[in-house]
């Protein structure tokens, strides 16, 4: 791994965060989350009917490494809105419970703020491939 390629990955991550108003870095995909915390966060976003981009960090460990170095946040999932880290699963759950998440996402309050993850609902946006520069 050359320094250039690592910088390229960092640029791709920062580019994806800049290009997508709501973006979730997760384990697995919205259709098939590979971790309970990622599943729960996806379920909350879907209950809010928020459109979001998703990046699966599992295919390449360097994605997580670069992401955590950039965000100063050690764990996955990580939700970014308008370029800012909102938090991980605990924070998203707490914000949803207190009704603070909807205004952050710019959506209406959902009827049921924190559903249990179903894993069944379709995502609003297809997963992003982080290893390729978007656009």
């Amino acid at each position: 791994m050359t320094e250039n390629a690592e910088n390229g990955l960092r640029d791709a991550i920062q580019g994806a965060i800049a290009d997508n108003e709501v973006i979730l870095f997760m384990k697995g995909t919205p259709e098939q989350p590979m971790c309970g915390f990622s599943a729960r966060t996806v379920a909350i976003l879907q209950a809010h009917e928020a459109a979001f981009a998703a990046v699966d960090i599992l295919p390449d460990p360097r994605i997580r490494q670069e992401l955590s170095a950039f965000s100063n946040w050690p764990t996955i999932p990580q939700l970014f809105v308008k370029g800012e880290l909102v938090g991980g699963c605990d924070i998203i759950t707490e914000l949803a419970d207190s009704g603070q998440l909807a205004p952050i996402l710019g959506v209406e309050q959902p009827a049921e703020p924190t559903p249990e993850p179903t894993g069944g609902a379709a995502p609003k946006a297809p997963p992003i491939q982080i290893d390729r520069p978007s656009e």
Partner: protein
Amino acid sequence: MQMEGLPVHNDPTPSELTERIENAIPGAKVLEADGDGHHFRVKVVAPAFEGLSLLERHRTINEIFAGELGGRIHALSMSCLTPEENQ
């Protein structure tokens, strides 16, 4: 007995997490701590959380376990309250 340099099996425990949080944050009390050796959940009440956002409160705890989260401590769920919020 533990010997230095050996790969000693040393899973974290809820009491280890409690002790480290209370030692690191003056006035902090860990009111609940559960875990199975890999996934943990703590409820921390501390005056130091006053005026901090949720993100900043979590960062305070994350820093205590820097380098261990996602590794030795696979996952740490937390709820961080001020004494006032806990009443």
